[in-house]
């Protein structure tokens, strides 16, 4: 995308921002797709700007929503989504340090609840990238619960959860297949998530001068007692988060890629209905 195209894309985003958040979330990707393929871009931008401004004014003049309206509906979707994901990630990263002291079991319990709730909600919306991130968080927080409750240092829970993690990722792949644009990059993301922790461990081990760095990850994971390695789940979480974000961005650039909110570009639609 050259500088001119970037400017036009920014302009599309700005024009779509005129719409109230609810309408933008609901129809924004479709309107953006039409704008991107418009034979009369200036006229269509003006049309969208005029309509968006009218909708904004109409929404401002309409009666206020009831107070019990869910928070999710009042926040811009992207802010909500990333806030939840970042909060869950920070909670997961903070857990090893927090639990090495007085074991505040409420933190992992809250992490599990949040992860399960949003994994379920996002899975229902078929957003595989976010589903995978949240599922990762959900799977990596539970090992801290038995540690918190029993003050155990054995690696058994980590090993179990790693196996569960692998199985869960396998189960998620069919979900990804529903989105052609996501398939290849997301599959690459899944493989990378599984491969990166052993690779990172091998790197650390080789820097430390160990004889067989590539086996160090598996040796550590099979060790019956190794309280110093509780960073693995956090490492997994970080890797999953970064890789899946990159994979989702890549998927949006792929033909037929999915755009969840204005501001994220992707190719124009073809003429025939799906």
């Amino acid at each position: 995308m050259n500088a001119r195209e970037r400017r036009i894309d920014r302009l599309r985003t700005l024009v779509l921002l005129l719409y109230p958040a609810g309408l933008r979330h609901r129809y924004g990707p479709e309107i953006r797709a039409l704008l991107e393929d418009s034979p009369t871009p200036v006229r269509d931008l003006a049309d969208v700007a005029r309509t968006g401004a009218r909708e904004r004014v109409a929404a401002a003049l309409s009666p206020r929503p009831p107070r019990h309206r869910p928070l999710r509906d009042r926040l811009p979707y992207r802010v909500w989504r990333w806030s939840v994901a970042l909060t869950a990630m920070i909670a997961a990263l903070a857990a090893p340090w927090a639990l090495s002291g007085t074991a505040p079991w409420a933190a992992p319990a809250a992490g599990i609840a949040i992860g399960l709730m949003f994994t379920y909600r996002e899975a229902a919306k078929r957003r595989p990238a976010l589903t995978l991130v949240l599922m990762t968080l959900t799977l990596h927080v539970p090992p801290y619960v038995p540690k918190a409750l029993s003050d155990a240092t054995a690696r058994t829970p980590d090993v179990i959860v790693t196996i569960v993690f692998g199985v869960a990722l396998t189960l998620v792949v069919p979900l990804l297949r529903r989105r052609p644009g996501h398939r290849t990059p997301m599959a690459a993301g899944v493989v990378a998530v599984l491969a990166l922790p052993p690779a990172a461990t091998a790197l650390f081990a080789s820097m430390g001068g160990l004889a067989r760095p590539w086996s160090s990850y598996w040796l550590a994971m099979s060790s019956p007692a190794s309280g110093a390695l509780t960073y693995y789940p956090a490492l997994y979480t970080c890797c999953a988060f970064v890789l899946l974000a990159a994979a989702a961005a890549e998927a949006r650039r792929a033909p037929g890629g999915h755009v969840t909110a204005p501001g994220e570009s992707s190719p124009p639609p073809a003429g025939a209905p799906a």
Partner: protein
Amino acid sequence: MALSELGRFSEPALLVLISLADGPKHGYAMQDDIAALTGGRPGPGTLYGAVRRLEDLGLITPHETDDSRRRPYELTPRGRGQLQAELERLRSVAHTGLRRLATA
């Protein structure tokens, strides 16, 4: 609720209903179809302003799809009935107008 109550969106709404009369279409296909029908391509804002109102009225419904950029819409039974009534009303108006022109 009659389409005429949709204000500036009443004509685009009627055209959207006509466009969907022969099967589901997404926005881009609707634009093409309406352009072929009327000689004027509706802008995306106008098109989706009409789509939203028709959806709110339960006259059209989106198809379940994974691609949020190309969501096809189709007429509901109620929308089909409303379109039928609206077209018959227009035919009656056109018939009256043509008859008066012929006799003037």
